[in-house]
């Protein structure tokens, strides 16, 4: 069994939307990726025979949570406005953990709707939801710092 130490670093997670690196991420969960539908639907008959059907649906959503002060809010607003004005807000999104092997990629994503906003004494968050026509995902681990023995 290896004795490596596997290190995850939140700052090593790169989020690229339309070629622009996203920064000013919220504390806590700052990005989440989910598919709209499961890969297979299962049906079990009365006699216990189980069948499955492949959905083929790889569409999904990517939620990015920013601090309200983040300049990336301007970037995502820009894509949203371009979409509303002229359907020009469909862009690629890449999420990659450069300290590991996890990667999510959507070649066609757009802002589903603008985030709900609230203003208070403290800095609050802005959660942007991007709809994706298709998300290709690889959920991997992280890199060993010391190697295995």
């Amino acid at each position: 069994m290896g004795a490596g130490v596997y290190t995850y670093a939140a700052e090593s997670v790169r989020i690229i939307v339309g070629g622009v690196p996203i920064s000013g991420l919220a504390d806590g969960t700052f990005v989440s990726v989910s598919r709209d539908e499961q890969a297979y639907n299962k049906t079990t008959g009365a006699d216990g025979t189980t069948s499955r059907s492949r959905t083929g649906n790889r569409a999904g959503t990517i939620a990015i949570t920013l601090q309200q002060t983040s300049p990336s809010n301007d970037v995502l607003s820009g894509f949203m406005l371009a979409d509303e004005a002229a359907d020009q807000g469909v862009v690629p999104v890449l999420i990659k953990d450069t300290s590991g092997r996890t990667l999510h990629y959507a070649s066609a994503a757009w802002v589903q709707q603008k985030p709900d906003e609230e203003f208070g004494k403290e800095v609050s968050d802005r959660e942007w939801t991007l709809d994706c026509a298709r998300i290709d995902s690889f959920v991997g681990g992280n890199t060993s710092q010391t190697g295995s023995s």
Partner: protein
Amino acid sequence: MALSDYADIQVSFEAQTVSRAGFGTLLFITEDTTESSGVVNGPYASLSEVENDYATGTEPYAFAQEAFAQGEGFSSLKIGHKDATNDTWTDIIASIINESDADWYALAVETRTAADIELVAAEAQARGKLYIAVTADAAVLDDQDDTDIASTLLSNSYSRTAVLYKSDGDSTYPEGAWFGRMLPEDPGAANWAYKSLSGVATDSFTSAERGALRDKRANYYENVAGNPITYGGYTSEAGKFLDIIRGVDWLQTRMQEDYIAVQTGQDRLPYVGGGEIIESEVVRRRLDIAVDQGVIAEGYEVDVPGYRDQDPTDRSARSYPGITFNATYVGAINTVGISGVVSP
């Protein structure tokens, strides 16, 4: 200007950069004396436009007639001029590219002489163009002959030249028809074999002749089961076909353009995190388009080294090498083997 000076993107072999419009553009080089050497006219979008510059009895008109006879799609023909006495084919292609007009992709020439075809094929190979050479030399049909033009080009592994045998090729331009039929298709998405060409007469062959043509990777046009068809989309390099060459050239050129668009679209492409931007905006985005277009199959792999993994020398030189991908051609079927048993 070569985009490769800025984005060193290699997809199996190198293509000369052409514009988006230029990728569907065909250059026909003629020894017609309407213009002086090196002049390139066009692009012409129709035969009537050609007719404004060239009389109906000229070779450019005859070529254009075949190219534009294939339907609505083909719309970009250029006509370049060579001096029959003073220019070699090597010189005139170099001159046109360097001094007149390099924004074209497909190449056809007036000559049918084997020695000339060899020169043109060598230039097409070196300059990333796609050339269809037509021959009416019956030696191509002889499987014992290995000195004919098809055999010679095959021995040179010219992946950017396709030989088309036509018995009446000395007086017709079937390559104009073939280009006119195929250039409007999305690059890489259509097999150049099994295509009917308007206004082109078919040949007929014995089995031995057909075998010789295939062995020498010479294309031909014949009637099969009532259908006039081209066969087989070969280039003069084993394993390489016209659709694959054009598809890969398209992929490489578009990736280079995408890279330039990323560079010009922002204040700077940062070294830290820049690899991921290129991965998203240039490599994966274009590969997804190539999948949608039917050039490559799903399931490609991309590898982008992190900036920390780059050599300090490269970092100081602002060079980001080592981005690679692996993809599989969709390809096409030319022949099929089906066997079955029917029992009483």
